[in-house]
């Protein structure tokens, strides 16, 4: 079977028991490639991180500096012209909203804790339109502006507290996952300004995390951050 396959697999004439210093089959040189950074199709992985932003709901004050998100994803780009492209992305990200332990906190309860946070894990599916800002750029990602929308599926929403046991000085962590007041999905809009591998991201969630029929607070809806395209 191997003998049958070899003539198909070998690109050209073979030397026997000799050192082939250099060889090249040039037939593929003039084929128009369908895949590449600035060709018809391109897929590349991304890493993203950033900060949560936006106003806190009354009763649920958020520490904005310590509330961050991390994500890993994949972007697919379909080039339509030198200027326009369509894209889709899948992203798995985690967001931590740290709750400020002060007197204004009333949700989910008024009990003060050493640390307190909501941790959201989301599987996101996005679609976007990409406008390239440098039309003639060779086989490069270049500079671009993405405008898109994201459908997020909450795979896990946790409410966590951390308290020091006054007797043992050990930290007691409690995690509650069966929160009765959370939604299953979210919908967001986003914009990304890209410069080669780097993308500056701003996203706004338009739907609440918490079921507004059950509670009247929500987590901040904005995210600002950086996404690195690995290509």
């Amino acid at each position, binding site marked *: 079977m191997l003998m049958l396959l070899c003539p198909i697999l070998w690109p050209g*004439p073979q*030397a026997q028991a000799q050192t082939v210093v250099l060889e090249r089959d*040039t037939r593929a040189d*003039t084929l128009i490639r369908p895949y590449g950074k600035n060709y018809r199709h391109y897929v590349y992985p991304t890493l993203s991180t950033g900060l949560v932003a936006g106003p806190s709901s009354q009763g649920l004050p958020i520490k904005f500096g310590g509330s961050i998100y991390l994500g890993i994803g994949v972007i697919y780009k379909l080039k339509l012209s030198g200027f326009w492209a369509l894209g889709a992305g899948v992203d798995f990200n985690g967001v931590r909203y740290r709750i400020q332990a002060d007197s204004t906190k009333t949700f989910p309860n008024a009990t003060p804790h050493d640390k307190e946070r909501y941790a959201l894990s989301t599987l996101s599916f996005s679609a976007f339109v990409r406008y390239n800002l*440098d039309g003639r750029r060779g086989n490069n990602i270049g500079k671009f502006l993405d405008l898109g929308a994201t459908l997020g599926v909450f795979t896990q929403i946790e409410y966590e507290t951390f308290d020091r046991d006054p007797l043992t000085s050990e930290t007691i962590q409690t995690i509650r996952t069966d929160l009765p007041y959370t939604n299953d999905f979210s919908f967001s809009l986003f*914009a990304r300004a890209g410069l080669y591998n780097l993308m500056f991201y701003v996203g706004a969630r338009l739907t609440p995390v918490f079921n507004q029929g059950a509670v009247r607070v929500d987590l901040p809806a904005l995210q600002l951050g950086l996404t690195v395209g690995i290509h």
Partner: protein
Amino acid sequence: MHRTGILYKLSSLLVIGGVVGWVLLPQPTAAQPQGMYWVQLTDKAQARAQPAQLLHPATLARRQHLGLPLLSPDDLPLAAPYLAALRRLTDSLWMTSRWFNAVALQATARQMAAVRQLPFVSAVTCLQANLRPRPGTPNSLVSAASASAKGPPLKATAQALVEGQIGRMQGDLCAQLGLTGKGVRIAVLDIGFRGARQARSLHHLFANQQIESTYDFAHHKEKVYHGTVHGTGVLSCIAGRVTDSLPIGLAPDATFLLAITEKGMFEPAVEQLFWIQALEWAEQQGAHIVSSSVGYTSQRYFYPDADGHSTLLTQAANRAAAKGLLVVNAAGNAALDAWEHIAIPADGDSVLCIGATNPYTDVKADYSSYGPTFNRRLKPNLCAYGTVLCSHGPELAIVSGTSYSAPLVVGLAACALQQQPQRGGMALFRALEQAGHLWPYADYAHGYGIPQASKLLQLPPGHPATPQPVPPTLSYTRQDNALVVRVHNVPPPGIIRNLYYHIQTPRGDYRYFAVVRAEQADVLRIPLTRLQAGETVRFHYEGYTTQYTVGQE
């Protein structure tokens, strides 16, 4: 309780997006984004001038020598009233091109709408949508060239290397014949010449005032001894010497015009305009040969653009060749990148494209870009050592890159031109190709090989280096439906000899090529089933070329 509303979120998104966009997107000088445009003009408004007013005496002498018109319409300056009108409408004129009767200018879309209405504007092309400098390496061979030796560990001393870079071209013949490039004017277009004044290897150029003119087109000033040391290395590969008896390049007595055409971190589009400007300047200043180690690949172009005539750079290079100049450009160091192929403008059919060889194997250096052009014309045309000893600023260093291969060939070309000044640029181009050590064999890695002085220069009758007909060094036979190739002189252990072969299609291009080390007599076996009707397999070994054509046996 406060609840964040959808309107609030949307407006926040717009505001933040707007701020981010304002920061990131191009807003260089005006409220509207600006672009770089290439504006073609209809005519030169009956501009007139005498040749001596516009051109260096050396340019006139060259043209007279080659039978070219002393003054052609593309030598005339652009019409002053047209330029004044364009200045009034736009923010800045970046450059003018006499050859293309065109202007590169910076303007907003609104300004360009007005420009397009001008009766003397025939065509407008957007060169760059925005003008903000962007990070990343400049897309040139300069950045790809490495300041360290590549390939296997040095088996020889630096002296052996520098002797090899000259000796592989039989450069000692030039000195024997008293050829040093004297009277030949060479323009070197590069990114910087830092340390050239302090370099001992180039001391004679300054002592003898052989640097006749300099200009930094990227910064609009005459000083060029700044930037990187890349151009210093290139210059030394043309004219440098370690000692009087140990040359680095073959044209120590040539006259030089030095131009900087790159800003390093600046936009490739603009740098290409600088290169065109420098080329026009070089021609105007009477250059005979242009040595350029600059090239552009995937930062701006696709491989189909490398078809020998599509880009402005290539058009300018071809036009310079049409005016009698020999334009030599490095092939590029992109063989290991996704691009793989020769850089632009080395694709020009009138541009002598030089690849690099590994001094230790005599085969293409791994980084040296492959040909052909997109329309399947032969590139590179020739090759030379890709690892050389040269001036790396004031000091000598071993460096690698096709950037250094090209000037080695320029040095040899200058000697040939000194000996036979009646040759025009294209005649010299053909003579150099025919002097390749593989000629008439060629492939898309080596071109016609490394030029040999004995095949290029006119030698006195009876000179021992006079090329002699080479007896057959290989033969082939058909055995069991295969082509068996046998070399007649197997080298002793430790000596490297290579068999080159390619498969040429009936259209004339090579669909496959390879280099095999000759280590035994039966060096190669090619199943005939691999060949198609009308295809030719051509073999080259030790100066002898033979071929087999399917259907003509």
